[in-house]
């Protein structure tokens, strides 16, 4: 809602019209999240993923991928703060947009194989609070990310939409990381 003039999201011309443009992306995002969750629930998990090289090795591979993705996500949100002029005494360098985009792309593409492994091998599970939260957050993340990608090119949206979408995506990713990789590392150690 307080986008600086130099920030990329344009000022809303007609707010009601702008919000209307959110409907289809939001529906698609919801569909993405639901599809993932339903697939994870219906598909019988093979367990293969974590058994590939023993519980720990595959778990470590996934945990580290997720951790690297989270680091890129932190770069993403930091660069967004710079772009929006939210960091005092820091002016956005010319390459900040590229940093923002590429950190996001890398984070997303790192998260995809981890998510597929989780959904295919383990499924949407509910047997503990951590696992339930992780399953829900995981599905929501890809829904929220889809929404953000779909509204990015749209013009005339209210200024708060992108920050809100970005914050949701980032928060979900960190929550996913805490309920998986952080738990995994704190249970089994950083490496073995």
């Amino acid at each position, binding site marked *: 809602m307080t986008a600086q003039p130099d920030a990329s999201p344009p000022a809303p011309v007609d707010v009601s019209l702008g919000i209307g443009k959110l409907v289809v992306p939001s529906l698609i995002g919801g569909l993405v999240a639901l599809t993932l969750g339903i697939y994870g629930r219906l598909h*019988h*998990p*093979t*367990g*293969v*993923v*974590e*058994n*590939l*090289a*023993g*519980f*720990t*090795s*595959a778990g470590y*591979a*996934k945990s580290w*991928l997720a951790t*690297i993705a989270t680091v890129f996500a932190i770069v993403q949100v930091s660069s967004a703060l710079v772009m929006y002029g939210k960091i005092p005494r820091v002016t956005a360098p*010319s*390459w900040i*947009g*590229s940093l923002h*985009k590429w950190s*996001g*792309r*890398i984070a*997303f*593409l*790192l998260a*995809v*194989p*981890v*998510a*597929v*492994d989780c959904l*295919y*091998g*383990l499924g949407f*599970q509910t*047997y*503990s609070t951590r696992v339930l939260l992780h399953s829900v957050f995981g599905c929501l993340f890809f829904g929220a*990310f*889809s929404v*953000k*990608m*779909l509204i*990015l*090119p749209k013009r005339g949206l209210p200024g708060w939409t992108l920050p809100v979408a970005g914050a949701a995506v980032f928060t979900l990713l960190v929550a996913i990381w805490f309920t998986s990789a952080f738990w995994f590392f704190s*249970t*089994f150690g950083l490496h*073995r």
Partner: protein
Amino acid sequence: MPLPDRPIFGCEWNRNRLDCVLLGMKLNMPLVTLLAGLALGVGVLIVSMLGPSSAASASGYGATSTASATGAVKPAPASSASGGGASAAAPATTPASTPATTPASTPATTSTTAPAITSTTAPATAPGTVPAATASVPTADIPPKADYVARTNSGGGAVAISVHAGKAVAYMCNGHAVAAWLKGTAKAGKLELTGKNGARLDVSYRTGKATGSIMADGTKYSFSAPLVHRGSSGHRPPGLYEATATVHGVKIKAGWVVLPGGGQVGSVEYFADSDVAPTAQAPVLNLTTGTAQYDGVTLVASLISGLTGSGF
């Protein structure tokens, strides 16, 4: 080689940004990102789907589990055991904007469906791995007939040990991807149990309690397990339960540790005879009927009890 004015597809840097063009139209890069993720996900999924059927028992899973996670290589389908249908190393078609996602170092190619297990499938910390390790208990006398069950101290698993007339069985699972069966003897107060993939048991016996650790899939789980006393009600007593069945042509073996108080932890192994059996969460064992429903098949669980000798 795209023409300069109307490239079919191309990307170029423009004032610090990447612009891609397809058939002369400027592409919506966020959408390209989404579709790249979708393509990557589908690729990984396909590799995963092909993987278990052909390679679950035929190994090929290298130390980096990301061999399947990165989708760099497609293993040959299981059905192509006929000559030549080997390793189709087709790189997944991830767009150029996926720099960090292709560290697949060990291709999961399988040239045959024969269950040729390689030792790389075992966890890295268990040197020598696949050959079973043995464990022994130097002190104290294990009772000739006893059952122990407990949750492990970490990892959300549970362990069961049953001893009967010189024989012993131990099982550990985490209701998830970890399951290990150990079998062996109980002689002169010592348990000598062996299991697949470096599974080992170190236990010391104290009055009414077995304390120690069990190594399963490369992870050590410690436990302190009290003796199981016979249950009273019509429910199945706490203890170790197993069931085997063939589901969709795949031999599965389920194991449950039923705890005092009714809690249970169960895992099910697929391709149960293979050295590296893919493992997942077991269906809930109904403690009234002693059965569980698995993909429309009724699993009938039998109790492995040192007290009564059933299952030995």
